[in-house]
């Protein structure tokens, strides 16, 4: 399984990648994108199975990335890992077709709990 991690913070991409390795989700490889534009390019070139995206990013927010992915007819599994935690954010994420939203700070357990239903 290929997982595309999208975050403008290199530090956060590292942490998400490291935390994924602490879960029991099995074999996967990580691809990284530092922006929504780069994520769309990687989606095309790498065909990942899952996207884990930040919400607040310059130029293209995570929610816009999800909307563009869905507009293109791509139903890839998509989740947010973000410091955003308001009800409005969760509502927007759900309406746009996200499978889950995990709030920072997260743990391996919280990432695994979010991923299990969509990977089983």
């Amino acid at each position, binding site marked *: 399984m290929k997982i595309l991690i999208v975050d*403008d*913070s*290199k*530090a*956060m991409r*590292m*942490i998400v990648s*490291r*935390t994924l390795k602490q879960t029991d989700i099995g074999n996967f490889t990580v691809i990284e994108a530092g922006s929504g534009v780069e994520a769309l390019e990687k989606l095309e070139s790498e065909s990942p199975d899952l996207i884990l995206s930040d919400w*607040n*990013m*310059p130029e293209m927010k995570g929610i816009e990335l999800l909307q563009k992915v869905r507009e293109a007819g791509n139903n890839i599994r998509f989740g947010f890992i*973000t*410091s*955003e*935690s*308001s*009800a*409005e954010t*969760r*509502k927007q*994420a*759900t309406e746009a077709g*996200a*499978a*889950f*939203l*995990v*709030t*920072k*700070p*997260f*743990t391996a357990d*919280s990432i695994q*709990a*979010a991923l299990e239903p969509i990977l089983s």
Partner: protein
Amino acid sequence: MQPFAIDQTASEPNENDTTPVTVDLIAQMVDNLFTAMLELDIDSSPVEPPQLSDETLSATVQVSGDRNAIIQVFASHDLATKIATAMFAIEAEELAEEEILDALGEVVNVIGGNVKGIFDQECALSLPCVGVIQQPLPEDAMTVAFDLGGEAITVLFKERTK
């Protein structure tokens, strides 16, 4: 503040909610961030904020909308390096300056996002702005510091009226 999957029955933003951001809430956010996510040893009991110098690093986010606030985090370069070392899981000598600033920016980003969640109204969270400290600091702000492995990390919170 526990992470959560999307709650399909999430309530609408509560326009009448004026939940205050307290020292205890900030302490909880900081504790969760450093303990759960970075596995760093932080004491969430507030300590006296240290004197800030021109070399102190600062990371800032703003929440704007139905409620408005500025959140800042201050740390010495050494402490920011320690945080970055934990985030990147590499030795301090291998870190670029940009990565040290990135790490401190992510700290304030997480705290700012948690604050926005407490506000739970129509608000936007800015991207982090990181660099050396800009004086003067906001007046009448809540300023609290915590011991992180022998050095103080300072969090400033100031809610602003529209």
